[in-house]
């Protein structure tokens, strides 16, 4: 039988939860307000990049820039075979 696992002290646990909540909320907030990707001749949010990446219509070009394939497909959904 395995040994009992130790658990963090209540104060330490509360601190970890607080830090985690702040960090992860900050990640989302930072993305929503600050993160922009330039492709398709415009500035795009991470949500657009996510949706395009699902259908593999966003690529990293040889010069290091992000490029959009197949025109604007942001409203067509990403329902294509995965991971193709």
């Amino acid at each position, binding site marked *: *039988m*395995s*040994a*009992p*696992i130790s*658990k*963090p002290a209540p104060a330490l*646990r509360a601190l*970890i*939860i607080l830090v*985690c*909540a702040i*960090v*992860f*909320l*900050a*990640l*989302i907030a*930072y*993305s*929503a307000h600050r*993160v922009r*990707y330039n492709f398709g001749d415009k500035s795009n949010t*991470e*949500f*657009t*990049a*996510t*949706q395009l*990446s*699902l259908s*593999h219509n*966003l*690529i*990293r070009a040889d010069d290091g820039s*992000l490029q959009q394939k197949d025109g604007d497909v942001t409203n067509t*959904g*990403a*329902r*294509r*075979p*995965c*991971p*193709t």
Partner: protein
Amino acid sequence: MGSIINRIKRITIARRITQSATLLFLNLPFVHLLMVSCPVFYCHGCPLASMACPLGVLVNFSTLRIFPFVTLGILGLVGTIGGRLVCGWLCPFGLIQDLLHKIPSRKISLHPLLSYVKYPLLIGLVFAVPYFLPGKPITFCHFCPSGTLEASIPWQFLGQSSQGGWPAFIMRISILVGVVVFGIVASRSWCRVLCPLGAIFAFFNRFSIFRFRLTRHECKDCGVCASKCPVDIDPVKQMNTAECIRCMDCTCTEHIKLGMK
């Protein structure tokens, strides 16, 4: 004993309802939330998908060398709130695993060390390989059984073949069959051994807001909670360990409760 069985039944019914509801919601084609990752193991390649798979997004973003702020934020927040609660209560692949294990067959117990396999899988196939070898067909998505079940097979029937043709499709089907057989003989085998998303949430299990609490003076060491655990842990000795999927089956004994303390 009768009250314990009744409580187990109630918990199981509640879990089936939440797992089925999640499965239904993730397959509503008129819901267009594909730009947002759902915090469960799923495939956005499904013809009916309504949200994105977090692992798929992490793989794609590693390939594109973009930091996945939103996906990591969502996974981190969900993990901070409940740890692996989503594994037990929301994950559609968890529902499949639960149902598979009900198929009568010889059952095996897994060695505890096998639970560490999912961590190199997460780091290697979800982050490192897509980042360092972009474009190579050896990322997690290329082997994902959820992708095979929810995307490759439906799309094959819809007349659109997978990348890599039949050899890749057969390889993926073989992996899926292996996972299914593994799920029949060992309870929650995918979740315990191979799931990279489980590896992410496991990190939060020790300190998440919702966690189990044992009223130790009421515990009679009867062993019922350990016998009911689908991931073969002893809740009395290993409470809130990284492998606990928070299914709450152990709460049938009433000495163990899920709470915020």
